[in-house]
């Protein structure tokens, strides 16, 4: 399991990110101790270049003098929690306005709703990484990537859940040697075409089975198209290179739990980032802007596509929201249903975490464009 930050080895121990206002307490490293790794400017930690291979070996065992007062992460965590408890009432006062309260409620709701699915996905991905041999996927998928893409796309139907579960599983598939094109087709199709989501769509659109069919076909079509596009144009160096052996433990159990721990805190951090963005937009964007967009066909399609990205609603629930957008045409609603599970703020943050920023910056706009096109075409034929 190799989702890792591009930080130099061990850098984390010495330079924990301080909570706001904690800078004063951060000890200055003794002079000369950090010559090879200057303190990064705050906020620059993720862009820091990967040290050359073998840096690990050159890293000296810290001399005993380095152990003198430093803020390691458990201590920092305790300080953060204590500070938060002490400052409870001023914090509550600040958050007392209706705007901040609804922001907090949506933020907590998105996180709490997504965590079980994230944990499910992380357990599955750790199980794939530890217990399923790589040869299984070599046998299960056609060897030609062009054929493996649709097979993987259809296989997305077996992962019940929303998009938070599919990101770690797709990451594990890539590291297990599955062609990235096929893994990406799976990543895009799984949240949209599984039975749970299709059932929810049927419930939200009673008497309109063509909506369910349209969602299934358009999502599968776009997922396969993205897989084939990646196969033609994608470059593996856009993907964060899998680092072997990062989580190797003495036993299979240790490796499994290492992977679970690492993926949960890592993808979870990105999930929180996405939830913050979604809550901000939900609280800040007035809903009556949508009414203005519903009039013209082109604008209404684009408006709902952008709304799907911004709202980051779980794919099990987005059909109900789409159904309530009564001013919009069925095609615009289909666009909302196809775009949302494939790319939204929360997913973008999680994809950047799992596959790397270079990947996410290229993949997200391509997915958005193809999803809108695919949904409009399907809508034109079916609806």
């Amino acid at each position: 399991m190799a989702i890792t930050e591009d930080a130099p080895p061990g850098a984390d121990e010495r330079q924990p990110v301080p909570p706001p206002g904690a800078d004063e307490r951060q000890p200055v490293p003794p002079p000369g101790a950090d010559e090879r790794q200057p303190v990064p400017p705050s906020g620059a930690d993720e862009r820091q270049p990967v040290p050359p291979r073998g840096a690990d070996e050159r890293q000296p065992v810290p001399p005993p003098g380095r152990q003198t007062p430093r803020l390691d992460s458990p201590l920092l965590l305790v300080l953060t929690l204590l500070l938060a408890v002490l400052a409870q009432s001023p914090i509550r006062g600040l958050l007392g306005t209706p705007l901040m309260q609804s922001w907090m409620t949506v933020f907590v709701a998105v996180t709490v709703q997504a965590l079980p699915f994230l944990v499910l996905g992380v357990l599955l991905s750790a199980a794939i990484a530890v217990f399923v041999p790589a040869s299984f996927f070599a046998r299960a998928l056609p060897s030609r990537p062009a054929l493996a893409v649709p097979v993987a796309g259809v296989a997305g139907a077996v992962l019940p859940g929303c998009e938070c579960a599919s990101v770690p599983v797709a990451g594990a598939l890539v590291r297990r040697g599955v062609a990235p094109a096929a893994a990406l087709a799976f990543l895009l199709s799984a949240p949209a075409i599984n039975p749970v989501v299709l059932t929810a769509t049927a419930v939200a659109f009673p008497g309109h089975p063509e909506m369910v069919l349209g969602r299934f076909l358009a999502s599968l079509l776009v997922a396969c198209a993205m897989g084939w596009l990646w196969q033609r144009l994608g470059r593996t160096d856009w993907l964060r290179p899998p680092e072997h052996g990062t989580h190797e433990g003495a036993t299979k159990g240790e490796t499994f739990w290492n992977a679970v721990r690492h993926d949960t805190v890592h993808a979870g951090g990105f999930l929180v980032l996405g939830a913050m963005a979604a809550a901000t937009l939900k609280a800040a964007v007035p809903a009556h802007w949508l009414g203005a967009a519903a009039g013209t066909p082109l604008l209404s399609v684009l408006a709902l596509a952008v709304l799907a990205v911004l709202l980051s609603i779980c794919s099990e629930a987005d059909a109900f929201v789409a159904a309530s957008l009564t001013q919009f045409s069925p095609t615009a609603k289909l666009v909302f249903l196809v775009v949302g599970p494939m790319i939204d703020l929360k997913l973008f943050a999680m994809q950047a975490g799992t596959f790397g920023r270079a990947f996410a910056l290229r993949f997200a706009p391509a997915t958005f464009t193809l999803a809108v096109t695919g949904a409009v075409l399907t809508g034109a034929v079916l609806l």
Partner: protein
Amino acid sequence: MNRQAQAAVLFLLGGALLHAGTTDLYLRYVKAALQPLLLASGAVLVVAALATAWYERRRARRGPDRHHHPEPRISWLLVLPLLALILIAPPALGSYSALRSGTALQKPYAYGALPAGDPVPLSVVDYASRAAYGHGRSLHGRAVRVTGFLALDRAGHPYLVRMALNCCAADAQPVKIALTGTLPPVLRPDAWLEVTGRFTPRLTHDPVNDGPVPYLEVTSAKPVPVPRDPYDETWNN
């Protein structure tokens, strides 16, 4: 964040999920059907934290560890939902969100039989759809009792609202009933009211999305505590 700290965060996060799942706290944020998943994932997180601590101890016993590999800093963000859930526990969405989005009322398939009782206990969604789409005919002129929270629009007109929820509060949408008749002298937004009244054919439209907002002629109203599940989840069944 090193492994001990990660174990601590996982443990606290799992504990917070278990706490929210065993009390009614989770109902402020997600649908009721998510409870078993919340409890299961909370338990998994606690086990992962314990396993991490256990393997860390074994590793420490194996001798000094030179295999320090970078640990994600983004994981510090996980402290935020933890603090929000434990320290603040924000309330369920209220009148502020309700007035910002349009009513989500939809034409129902059919109207079920009215429940027994006088006045008839009805949900906000049930009354609103019978009144707006069925012209109140399925109410047979009987008195109804509806529970929801108050929202006052800019002009001060009172609405009785219930947020309808499908998955989590991020997708919650209001269903609104406009109130007229005998109302309490002081109206406070977000206060929960149990309103008794009769159907009136008056109908208005939501300024946000032009959706139908039926009126209810109130005969009496009394304040009630926040219900166990503040959202209307009938659309989930």
